[in-house]
């Protein structure tokens, strides 16, 4: 059993000045090494939940434990060391004139000595594939690389858990592929990753577990395969499973034994069936 890194206990959250609950009694356990997708319509609470995981938001009721630390009583700067959060829009973060300085911002804030900062920046840039771009102006980079830069700048803080807020939105298919391989790589290195996304294809190919959040509550939480096949519940939440899953379900209805989550699985399974 992997160790637990985040525990959410009966979390209720309300934004200041609002009289409706954004999160209602959410319970969640995240173990080391998981890759989890948070899905759901905007306004349903997935981002609110994610921001409660590193102290950016504090529970109104209930509690959140990050590696045993209670987010209500632990200073935020201690929490962000453990749970890194990459925001959706790179322009909300980038402010330095060189890639190197941008990535160094995080480690510097941690008060690390200069040689450690140097080490971390090099490491983070190589992780995302931006080695060699140290002296570039961040705004000269294309959107896909800017996204990688923001991930590198959070990675440089060496958090145990990485939250990626809509990393695929606004990206083209190649960007999505780059991101997928980065997620796989980081997963292989032991990082715990939470991805907030609307891209069901991406979820099917990269996340082992999926959590559907709607109206402030966890509606579905389980292996991606079963969540993406829960067609009725997804439909109620205006979500469509990826095309391969829809294909599988339709063919199942016609009596064929296809139960594929991804393209790769579909190819293998069809071949198997044809071989008889």
């Amino acid at each position, binding site marked *: 059993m992997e160790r637990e890194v985040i525990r959410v206990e009966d979390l209720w959250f309300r934004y200041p000045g609002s009289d409706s609950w954004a999160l209602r009694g959410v319970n969640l356990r995240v173990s080391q090494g998981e890759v989890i997708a948070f899905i759901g319509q905007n306004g349903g609470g997935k981002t609110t939940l994610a921001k409660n995981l590193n102290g950016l938001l504090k529970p109104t009721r209930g509690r959140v434990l990050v590696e045993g630390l209670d987010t209500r009583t632990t200073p935020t700067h201690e929490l962000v060391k453990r749970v890194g959060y990459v925001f959706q829009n790179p322009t909300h973060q980038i402010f330095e004139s060189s890639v190197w300085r941008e990535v160094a911002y995080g480690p510097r804030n941690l008060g690390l000595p200069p040689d450690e900062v140097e080490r971390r920046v090099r490491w983070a840039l190589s992780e995302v594939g931006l080695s060699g771009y140290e002296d570039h102006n961040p705004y000269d980079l294309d959107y896909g690389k800017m996204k990688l830069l923001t991930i590198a700048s959070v990675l440089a803080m060496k958090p145990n858990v990485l939250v990626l807020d809509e990393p695929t939105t606004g990206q083209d298919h190649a960007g999505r592929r780059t991101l997928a391989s980065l997620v796989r790589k980081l997963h292989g290195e032991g990082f715990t990753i939470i991805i907030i996304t609307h891209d069901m294809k991406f979820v099917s190919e990269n996340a082992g577990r999926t959590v559907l959040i709607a109206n402030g509550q966890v509606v579905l939480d389980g292996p991606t395969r079963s969540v993406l096949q829960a067609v009725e519940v997804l439909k109620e939440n205006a979500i469509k499973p990826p095309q391969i899953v829809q294909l599988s379900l339709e063919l199942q209805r016609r009596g*064929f034994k296809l139960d594929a989550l991804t393209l790769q699985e579909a190819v293998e399974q069809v071949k198997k069936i044809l071989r008889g």
Partner: protein
Amino acid sequence: MEPVIRVENLTYAYPTSRDFVLRNVSFEVHRGEVLAVIGPNGAGKSTLLKALNGLVPHFYGGKYGGRVVVAGYEVLKTPISVLSTKVGFVFQDPEDQMSGLALTVWEEVAFGLMMLGFPREEIPKRVEEALSYVGLKGLEARSPFELSGGQMQRLAIATVLALKPEILVLDEPTAQLDPLGKFEVLSVVKRLADEGATIVIAEHEIEEIAYFADKILLLDRGQVVAYGPAREVLASVEELKSRGVDPPSVTELAYLLSRDLGVKVPAPITLEEGVESFSKLLGGAGGA
């Protein structure tokens, strides 16, 4: 029949750059056709779309070569304000299209009509029609900024529809939206397509556009790499993938099976076609 859009050897570079963003792009769009423009980020899709309503070159300046004729007007010689009555442009981010001058959804739609000096008596009727069409009836009194992403983008479409343009150009209209928003907006676009609107749309949601695109133009690094009927372009899986574009899953599945098994599977481009194709394929072996 004269095409309503004709682009001939369009070549363009922004004033701040020496690289040409578009190189010898040529294509035509006939009345009632839907052309989808696909390609990786940076290919020039946005720039190409902006060349249809005059933003390129009139707003940006830059180096311009070739010829673009839209609804009978030569873009190079026609001001944006005239072209905006013929070409309705919808951008990617719904919030950035809100004028900021309108307190209500109703006023936001009326804004465009105000800008073009439409007589006051005509405005209410057009506003009502446009809002009804996109499904925002009943929300007239709301503030535009209180709407959801999908609602706001539909509002943006309504503001453009109120002008009754001949052509609708949409630049990645669903990129910033959640699944519900994408569905809402694409439904409106499909409806417009069904009812004979002339549409040029840049999109990454390839599985969706397979349903309503007549022709597809694949752009990469400013050049036309593929241009033809949607089915043909989507079926050329290797070409698409080499340019960083993923075809619909069912299409790719058929391609991989064809390649690995040596069987010819007619390339489906939609889920329904996929179900049919694969049922037939599997019908020979396996099954209940």
